């Protein structure tokens, strides 16, 4: 029949090229033997830094040498100072993150699952998101003093917006045709939310999660400059008073390691949860 013959006619387009082997199928991760090359330049920079410090080119009151920093790190870890500071800071981030995540996700669900909810929630959220949340610090101090509350609130606020925006967009971006298929299967609204809406929005939510964790750590650093008496920020501020640049750098490195760690957790979650993206 006609459809058949016409479709049989052009099978020539996708013929494999015998002369072109697996050149295109280059592995995505680098082979092991070249991976170490990526460490060359950072190590060289640290070595140069050490050289500059040792020869006196780099004033040690401006920036401590890598050796000094390593020694300070050992000391801070040894006497428990760093551990205590990290614990306090991580608690702040965790509390602020949970509060902000719950708030952001709840608002995204309200806005994403009903038109009324969208009309009520989305306009104020879209207006507020343009506000740099660090600008609210003075108000937070007036409202909440300088204890834990304004720090946690600042982190929570920073976390809520990326999660809200991405999750809301994720829910709205779900293929209407798939939603319709779910309705044709006579699934209830709750079943559709559970099996279609939430998993469909998950990729966007995870993007929001990564953004919000980054902002959480940033907010922590800023928040800890508000009169702290414990935590990494306190440690850094005290070191500033005594011009201990090695301690300051130890604090900064700790911040970035913590950020890297949470990012790795989210990337792991993404790999687990989004393995269907083949």
């Amino acid at each position: 029949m006609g459809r058949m013959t016409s479709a049989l006619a052009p099978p020539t387009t996708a013929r494999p090229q015998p002369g072109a082997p697996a050149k295109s199928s280059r592995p995505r991760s680098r082979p092991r033997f070249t991976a170490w090359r990526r460490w060359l330049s950072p190590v060289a920079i640290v070595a140069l830094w050490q050289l500059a410090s040792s020869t006196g080119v780099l004033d040690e009151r401006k920036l401590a040498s890598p050796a000094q920093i390593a020694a300070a790190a050992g000391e801070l870890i040894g006497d428990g100072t760093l551990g205590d500071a990290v614990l306090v800071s991580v608690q702040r981030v965790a509390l602020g993150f949970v509060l902000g995540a719950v708030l952001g996700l709840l608002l995204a669900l309200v806005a994403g699952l009903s038109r009324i909810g969208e009309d009520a929630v989305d306009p104020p959220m879209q207006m507020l998101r343009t506000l740099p949340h660090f600008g609210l610090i003075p108000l937070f101090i007036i409202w909440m003093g300088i204890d834990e509350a304004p720090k946690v609130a600042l982190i929570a606020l920073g976390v809520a917006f990326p999660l809200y925006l991405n999750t809301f967009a994720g829910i709205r971006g779900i293929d209407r045709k798939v939603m319709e298929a779910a309705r044709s299967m006579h699934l209830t609204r709750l079943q559709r939310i559970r099996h279609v809406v939430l998993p469909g929005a998950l990729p966007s939510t995870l993007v929001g999660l990564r953004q919000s964790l980054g902002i959480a750590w940033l907010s922590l650093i800023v928040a800890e400059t508000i009169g702290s008496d414990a935590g990494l920020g306190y440690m850094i501020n005290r070191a500033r008073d005594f011009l201990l640049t090695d301690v300051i750098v130890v604090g900064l490195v700790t911040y970035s390691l913590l950020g890297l760690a949470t990012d790795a957790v989210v990337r792991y979650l993404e790999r687990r949860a989004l393995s269907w993206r083949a």
Partner: protein
Amino acid sequence: MARLTTNRTSSTPTSTPAHAPDPHPANGADRAAGHVARVRGHHRSFGDVHVLRSIDLDVAPGDFVALLGRSGCGKSTLLRSLAHLDPSPTDEVDVVGRSAVAFQEPRLLPWKSVVDNVALALLNAPERKDRVRLARERLEEVGLAEKMDAWPLQLSGGQAQRVSLARALVPDPSLLLLDEPFSALDALTRIEMHQLVIELWRRRQMAVLLVTHDVDEALGLADLVHVMDGGRMARTWQIDLPRSERSPSHPEIAGVREEILQTLGVEPTPPNPNRVPSTPSGAADSRGAA
């Protein structure tokens, strides 16, 4: 409760006994008794555009019905009404039992494995274990046993459409609604899917309503071909010929084909220069030969 036989123009006055080669349990006495779908005076309009005008349609248990028409004739809208995807008043559209839809696109959930996609249609069945078991059975039935645990994005178009078919079948619908489910497939896969649908229909007590714009597909698969035009039911043909004999060159099929094309306002031409003369029992027959 009589069906609208007046509406129906039999293509062969001296027709063979209906469905002789299709021993369909529901085709006997039940056929006159009940209906799985009854549409009476159904009207749909979007703004000033009348998409459906006073549609009457009956589908009896075990019927294989085709809704044929040009794009925009309202056939898909009618299917949506039958699937209750759009709000449709119950006195106009009555579907007895459960309906299921296979769409033009497979519309699988990419984040669920193939077997979970099928099991999803059984969500109201009691046990997850039973759901998975039934889903596996349906997937075996459509010949995808080896793809149970694959992700939908790993499937070919034809495989995905089979999963979609299995998903529609798993709740044992009394009315299977097919919304041009073959039109996006390549020609060979389409022939396989035609055979599969006929097999599945024969094995089950369900009515099938196929929406298509393909005259040959409708003539090859359906026992009743309703032609829609401008939101109305234009005319209905009953095809009593066994499916194995429904070659486009068969005089009866060719005659109905010409009538349908005339009804649709297409200049009647020979069916298709590629297929008419030389193939007495070519691929066209294979869909009905199973």
